[in-house]
Every structure is written in C-alpha cells, then in structure tokens.
C-alpha cells in the first residue's frame, strides 16, 4: 500500500537524520532525568502515606509515571520546532510537489518520534530502577503504551500547529502556555488529592490527570479498575481527536 510505503520512506529518512545527531535523543531526556535524580529522592523522605501506598518504595512508583508523562508531554509537543526548520529549508514543499502521500509526510515523522520517545522512556525507567523503583514489568509496559498513544496525538498536533505558524517565536510561547498548566494540573510532582477542592476540580480538565492515575494504578499492581478504564478511554480519545486535527494541515491543498 502506497501510504505505508510512503510513511516508512519518511520514517527511514527521519531516523537517518536523527542518528546523525544522536545527542538530541539524550538532550530531550535531560529535564526528566534531572527531576528524577535531583527531586525524586525528596519524595522518598515524605511521611509514608502522603503519596498513597505504605512504603518508601511507593514514592518511586508514584513519581516515575509522572516523569514519563512529563517526558511524553514535552518530548512530543516540541517536535514541531523541527518541521519549522524543515519548512524553511524548503523540504516540506519539495515533498509536497512529489506524488508522495501528503499524510505520510506527517505519519513518517510521528512514527519516528513515537519510537524515540518510547526509547527515552525505557531509559528513564531503567534509571528509575537504579534509584529504587520496583514495579511489575506489565505495569511498565502499560505505561510505555500510554506514552506511545499520547505521543502519536500530541506530535501530530504539534507538527500541524508549527506548520501553520511557521515561526519558532510564536510556537515556543504557545507550547509553554498550553503544556505547563496541563502538566501541573495532571499531578506529576504531588498527588492532586493534596490540593484544595477548586484545584482538584480544574485538574479534571487535564486529560493527563486520568492517564497518570491509570499508570500509577498499574504501577501499584491494579490493572482492572475504573481508573484504568478512564485512562485508556481518555488516551485513545485524545489521540484520535489530535490525529484528526493534526492531519488536516497536511492534507490541505494549500500550505
């Protein structure tokens, strides 16, 4: 099928270009790694029970899913920067005048980003294990699946918004304005249940609140509950909505 051929073509090109500068794979991980190393140990000193659970090991089972969401949120929403420079280099137009599927120009890139993010997430979990994280393998796989689904949607939207704005100066503040509150409201550092009622209320509008709750539930060994059902539904719904929005900029006749 030509769409798959084209997607793989764009994917291979993007992977090849990324591997020419492999440092970028690590640079994107620095922020969550710093949080893990410089902030995570503080959480293990909190009175037992603050973060839920009954042991200090629960602090890591609470914190690592949060860092994975942080990695996924920033890693996938910042991919748009690259397409602005690609556009400026004329690469996007060059592809758009060929018979290649216009959607593949997006899907090949998103596929590369999802692979990169999952790889980064695995590395992050491994560092977490070195610091004392103990979680079932199944739970870790579930969290990687969440990251992948979220990344598909967010990367698509990031690319299309960046391609519409065509300016890093406009894109950077926009991303920060959207992503930082979403991240804070999802309860990455501390449980939202510690907050006052109004804050808990608005945190319900962040889809990542549901996803992180589902991930933490898995890390605690509970896979079959309403938290997981909500998390899965929100993640898939978000991905579909984002894919729909994201593909529109690429399918447009004019860009």
């Amino acid at each position, binding site marked *: 099928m030509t769409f798959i051929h*084209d997607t793989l073509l764009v994917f291979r090109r993007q992977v090849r270009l990324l591997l020419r500068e492999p440092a970028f794979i690590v640079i994107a991980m620095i922020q969550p790694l710093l949080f893990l190393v410089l902030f995570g140990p503080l959480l293990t000193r909190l009175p037992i029970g603050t973060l839920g659970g009954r042991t200090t090991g629960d602090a890591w089972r609470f914190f690592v899913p949060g860092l994975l969401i942080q990695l996924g949120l920033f890693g996938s929403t910042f991919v748009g920067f690259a397409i602005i420079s690609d*556009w400026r280099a004329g690469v996007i137009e*060059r592809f758009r*005048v060929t*018979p290649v599927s216009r959607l593949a120009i997006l899907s090949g890139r998103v596929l590369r980003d999802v692979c990169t993010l999952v790889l980064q997430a695995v590395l992050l979990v491994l560092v977490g294990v070195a610091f004392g994280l103990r979680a079932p393998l199944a739970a870790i796989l579930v969290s990687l699946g969440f990251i992948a689904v979220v990344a598909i949607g967010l990367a698509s939207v990031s690319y299309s918004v960046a391609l519409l704005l065509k300016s890093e100066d406009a894109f950077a503040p926009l991303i920060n304005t959207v992503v930082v509150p979403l991240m804070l409201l999802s309860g990455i550092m501390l449980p939202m249940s510690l907050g006052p009622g109004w804050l808990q209320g608005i945190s319900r509008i962040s889809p990542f609140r549901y996803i992180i709750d589902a991930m933490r539930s898995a890390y605690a060994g509970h896979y079959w509950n309403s938290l997981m059902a909500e998390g899965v539904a929100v993640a898939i719904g978000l991905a579909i909505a984002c894919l729909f929005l994201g593909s529109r900029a690429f399918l447009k006749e004019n860009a």
Partner: protein
Amino acid sequence: MPIIEATGLARTYQSRKRVVHAVRGVDLTVDEGEIVGFLGPNGAGKTTTLRMLTTLLRPTAGHATVAGADLVRDPVAVRRRIGFVPQAIGQTMGGTDNQAKVIEELHDQAALYRIGKADGARRAKALLSQLDLGGLGDRLVKTLSGGQRRRLEIALGLVHEPPIVFLDEPTTGLDPQSRSNLWDHIRRLRSDLGTTVFLTTHYLEEADALCDRVIIIDNGVTVAAGTPDELKRHVSGDVVTLKVSGPADRARQLLAAQPIVRDVAESDEGLRLTVEHGEEALPALLRAVDGAGMTISSISLSRPTLDDVFLTLTGRSLRDDSPSSTGKPTADATQQPDLAAAASRK
C-alpha cells in the same frame, strides 16, 4: 504541442474584510521543448502562478493542463510528471537538508516518485555526473558550495526524468561564473533530454541569454509574451545617437522627415533617433545627412534591452528590485532609448 496551457488562472485571498487578488488572470502556453522565462516585478504574481502550476496552491478560478493532466482535477498526475526546483532565497530554501548526504537526497527523491532502488541508484549516479557533482555523493549537503548545492537541487527535480521542469529563480544568489555554468546545464537539459524548462528569473540578461520565449506578468495579469527579440522590436525600436556639424534645427528637421525615423529627440550626446531596424537605417541616415551637405561627427547604434521592454510594459525597471542592483545607474544606462518616446508609443 503545448505542455502547459493555462487560461484565466487566478488566485484570490480572503483576509479579514479585504479580498486580495494575488493573481487576476494568467493565460499562458508553453510548447514542448521550449525554455520559457517568466518575468515580473516583485509582487506581480510570479511565485503564486508558479505555485499554482506546480499544485502547491489551488487556483480560485481558471483552469490549466500541465503535462497532459488537469491541474485541479488530477493534481497527483501533474506531480508525477513535473519536476520542481524551489527558489533558494527568501523565506524558504531550495529543499535540501543540511544534515543529509548528497546521495541520500537523490535516493530519497527517487523513492518519493516510487522509483525502485536499483533504478533510483542508477538515476542518481547519472545525475551526479551530468550536473558535475561526481565524487560528492558522500558529502553532507551543508558542506557544498552555493553552486554545487543549487545543482543538487536541480538534480532532485530531474530524478524521475520529467518532461517539464519548473525552476524558481535558479541562479539567484550565485556568482557570475556558477550562473553561466548553470545556464549551460539548463541548455543541455533541453538539447540532450528534450526537457521543457519553465523558469522565473530576476535577471534580464538571464532571460535574454537562456530563454526561447519570455512571458511577462504584471499586477497578476500576463501582459506580453514572445521571443526576447520580438518583444524588444515590438515595444521599443533601436536608437541611433548622432552628432551633426551644422545647425541642429536643420539636422533635426531633415532627420525627422526620413520615413525610417519614428522619433527624434535632443540629448546631451546629440540627436537620439528611434528607428525600426537600426542596421538598415544607418546607411540611409548617412546618405541623407551627406546629401544635405552636412557631416556626421559621431554616430552610434544601440538596441533596446529586455529591461526597456519591461519598463515600457510595467512602468517599473526589473533592475530596481534585483539583488545585484547597486542603486547606481547601470553602465549601459546612456544607451537606453528615450523612455518618454518609448512610453508614448505604447
């Protein structure tokens, strides 16, 4: 046989409460095997037209067939059959990635046209030598010189052996040597492969030296088309400048009475005559002055440039917005025919 046929091609933008007519109505025909130059001042609609013809922008009115396919109904078929080399200056560059290797760009481009691996490799190799890029295959694009990079971008537009290639400002930003080298490559495209070339340019000398035909666009409408010679002849005649010993008034009257002289004006250098065919006019003028008992102390003939054509048709000099413009009068400014006279004949 025409390979491009466009009628009434137009593009309007709706911005807030205003309607912007980027292109009002472009009619143009390009025959197979032609090298056609598309000229216009900045903002005339050159790039918009080119983007429509290459399926990057959907026309809001009019229709066109490009390489046998309908531009609006079957853009994918058009894409399969055209090569496009975007301009390498301004907002966007020529389409190559700094971090990619030369050979990778060619292989990827072949794959974009769904050319098989073996075939793509063969085409890439042939293009590298054809465009003097042999030995550069493993170099990163960012290490290429300006001229090499431009030739690579042109090679990308030719990977699928298209019957027609669109070149947007192919030589802008290149030094004179790379420019004339690129002209040779473009000429060879047509002579060796029979490729039709449609190019936009800022350089009138480029249009003059390279193009069989020139199409001029102004204010979103095509205003003239023809060979450079036809256009020059049509718009403004040749100019003969001469100095005559004796009373200037008498000389002037005498010359103005000659049937071959369209117009006479006085200038610092003497009398400026606008004539139809300069070479044929000279002997006749000499005879006439001689016959009246006067002598000519100096005489020169100058032909109009494409810039004069351009000036007459659009009221603007293309040189004004050319990047090579220095703001000083050009060396041949004094040889240009009288502007007012040219305009009055319009």
